[in-house]
C-alpha cells in the first residue's frame, strides 16, 4: 500500500477506528431505510403461509429447477472461461489491452435486452455464426443452451472484475519466486496463482451465480420463454404478473431470499479476505 508517509500520526492514533461523520450517518441511514421499503412491501404484500401454496404449481417448480440448473452451469462455465481471461487481462501487456478490457466489462453496464439482441445477431438462426451452425443442423435459439449462454454473457464480467482486483492486490512476487526456482509458467499458474485467487474466486463466482439467477432481458430476447426449457424464475414472475400477481410476489420473495443469502456470503468472504490480507 502507498500511504503518504508525511504527517503520519504516531503512537496509538492509527489503531483507533475512524467513525462515520454525522453527515454520512444521517444520509446513510435515510438511504438504507429508503432502499429497504420496497423489499419490506414485498414481504408484507402476502402472508408467509400463502407462499408454499403459491409455489406448489408445476410452472413455479419447473422455473425454480431450471433457474438453479442453468445458473449453476453458467457459473462453472464462467469460472473456466473467466479465470484465464482475468489473468490474461491483468498480467499481459499488449496494444489495445484497455479496449479489450472495456469490451469484456461491457455486458456489466449494457441493458440486458441489448445483450440479448447482440447474442441473437451472433448466434440466432440468421446470425453471423448462428446461420452456419443452423446449416450444420445445430440450432441454439429457444433451447436451454441459449439460456446458459445469455447468463454466461452477462455474468462473466462479475468474475473478471473480482479476480482482477484480487490479482492486483496479490501482486506477482510469489510467481516470480516460483519461476526463478525453475517452475514452468503454466505450472506456477496452477500451483501458485490459482490458490492465491481463492477469495476472489469465491466472491466472484457467488456474484456470477446471483447475476445468472436474476437474468431476464437477454434470456427473453435470445432464448424465448417456454416452461421447463427456457422459462426461468424471472421470466415466470413476469408472466405470472399477467394473471396471478400473488404467485409473482411469492416467486419474487424466493429470488430475493436466495439473493440475500448469496450476497451475504460473498460479502463476508470478501471482508474476511481483506482483514486477513491486512493482518498478513
Amino acid at each position, binding site marked *: 500500500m502507498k500511504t503518504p508517509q508525511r504527517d503520519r500520526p504516531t503512537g496509538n492514533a492509527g489503531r483507533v477506528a475512524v467513525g462515520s461523520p454525522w453527515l454520512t450517518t444521517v*444520509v446513510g441511514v435515510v438511504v438504507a431505510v429508503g432502499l429497504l421499503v420496497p423489499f419490506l412491501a414485498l414481504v408484507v404484500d402476502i402472508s408467509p403461509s400463502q407462499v408454499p401454496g403459491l409455489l406448489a404449481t408445476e410452472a413455479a417448480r419447473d422455473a425454480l429447477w431450471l433457474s438453479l440448473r442453468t445458473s449453476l452451469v453458467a457459473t462453472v462455465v464462467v469460472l473456466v472461461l473467466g479465470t484465464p481471461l482475468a489473468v490474461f487481462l491483468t498480467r499481459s501487456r499488449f496494444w489495445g489491452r484497455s479496449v479489450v478490457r472495456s469490451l469484456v466489462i461491457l455486458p456489466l453496464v449494457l441493458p440486458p435486452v441489448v445483450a440479448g439482441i447482440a447474442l*441473437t445477431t451472433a448466434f440466432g438462426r*440468421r446470425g453471423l455464426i448462428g446461420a452456419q451452425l443452423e446449416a450444420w443442423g445445430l440450432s441454439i435459439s*429457444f433451447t436451454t443452451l441459449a439460456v446458459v449462454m445469455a447468463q454466461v454473457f452477462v455474468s462473466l464480467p462479475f468474475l473478471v472484475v473480482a479476480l482482477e482486483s484480487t490479482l492486483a492486490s496479490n501482486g506477482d512476487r510469489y510467481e516470480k519466486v516460483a519461476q526463478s526456482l525453475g517452475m514452468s509458467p503454466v505450472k506456477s499458474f496452477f500451483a501458485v496463482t490459482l490458490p492465491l485467487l481463492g477469495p476472489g474466486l469465491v466472491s466472484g463466482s457467488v456474484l456470477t451465480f446471483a447475476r445468472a439467477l436474476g437474468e431476464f432481458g437477454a434470456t*427473453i430476447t435470445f432464448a424465448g*420463454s417456454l416452461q421447463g426449457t427456457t422459462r426461468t424464475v424471472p421470466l415466470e414472475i413476469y408472466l405470472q404478473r*399477467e394473471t396471478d400477481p400473488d404467485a409473482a410476489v411469492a416467486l419474487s420473495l424466493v429470488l430475493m431470499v436466495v439473493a440475500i443469502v448469496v450476497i451475504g456470503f460473498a460479502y463476508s468472504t470478501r471482508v474476511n479476505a481483506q482483514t486477513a490480507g491486512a493482518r498478513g
Partner: protein
Amino acid sequence: MRIPAAGLLAVAGLTLISCGSPGADNGAAEEITVFSAASLNEAFDALATEFENEHDMQVNLNFGGSSSLVEQINSGAPADIFAAADERTMSWVENTAGKPVVFASNSLVLVTPEDHSAGIDALADTIGTQLVVCAPEVPCGAAAQQAFEQAGVKLSPVSEENSVSDVYGKVLSGQADAGVVYRSTVQEDDPVHVVEAPQLSAVVNKYPIVQVSDDELAQEFMEFVLSDRGQQVLSDAGVGGR
C-alpha cells in the same frame, strides 16, 4: 457551510426528472391520457393524431400488456380512457366512469418469415417447427390455443411470449419459423408471409373500451372512437369493426 456536491447532484437530478416529462409543454391547452393494449398500437396512433388535429389538444398514449395496464390503473395511474385486448382483462378494472363498450375486433393469422423457408401453409404444418405464440395467460395466447383446439392440431410452440409484439419480433427477425399474431399486427409493407387459416379467422377477439375519468374530452374521444370516422381509421389500421 459547503453543501456537499453529492447532495447538489441529487437535487439537480430530481429537478431534471420532474421537468423532463414528455409532452409537458408543447403549447396544447388540454390533454387526455389513453391506456391501450399493445396490439392496438398503430390504430391508436392514427386515432390520436386525427383527434389532436380536430381539437387543439394533446393525447398521451400508453401502450402495454392489458393486464399490466389494469394493474397500473387500479394503483391510481392517471388514465382517462382504457382500451383492453379482451373482455376478461377489462373486467378487472376496479373504478370506471362508465360501462365498457366493444369498439373493435381482431382475429388471428399465422405469419412466417418472408422467404417462407419452412414451407408452412396450414396450422398442421407448424408441428415440429419453431412456432412461437403468446402464452395462454395473455389474450393473444388464449385465442391461439382456442384456434388450434378447434382445428384439432396440437399446439407445440418453442416459445410462449408475453405479448403479440414479442411474437411478431421473433418472426420478423427470422428466429421463428412461424408465429400466431393478430391480423392488425401485420402492416402492409412488413417482410412477412401471411398464412390464412379458417380456424384462426374464426376466433374473433373483441376489444372493449371504457372511460376511466369523467373528463369531458375523454367523453369526446370515446365518441370519436365509436363514430363512423373512428371506425374507418381503425379498419385502415387493420383492426376489424365492432
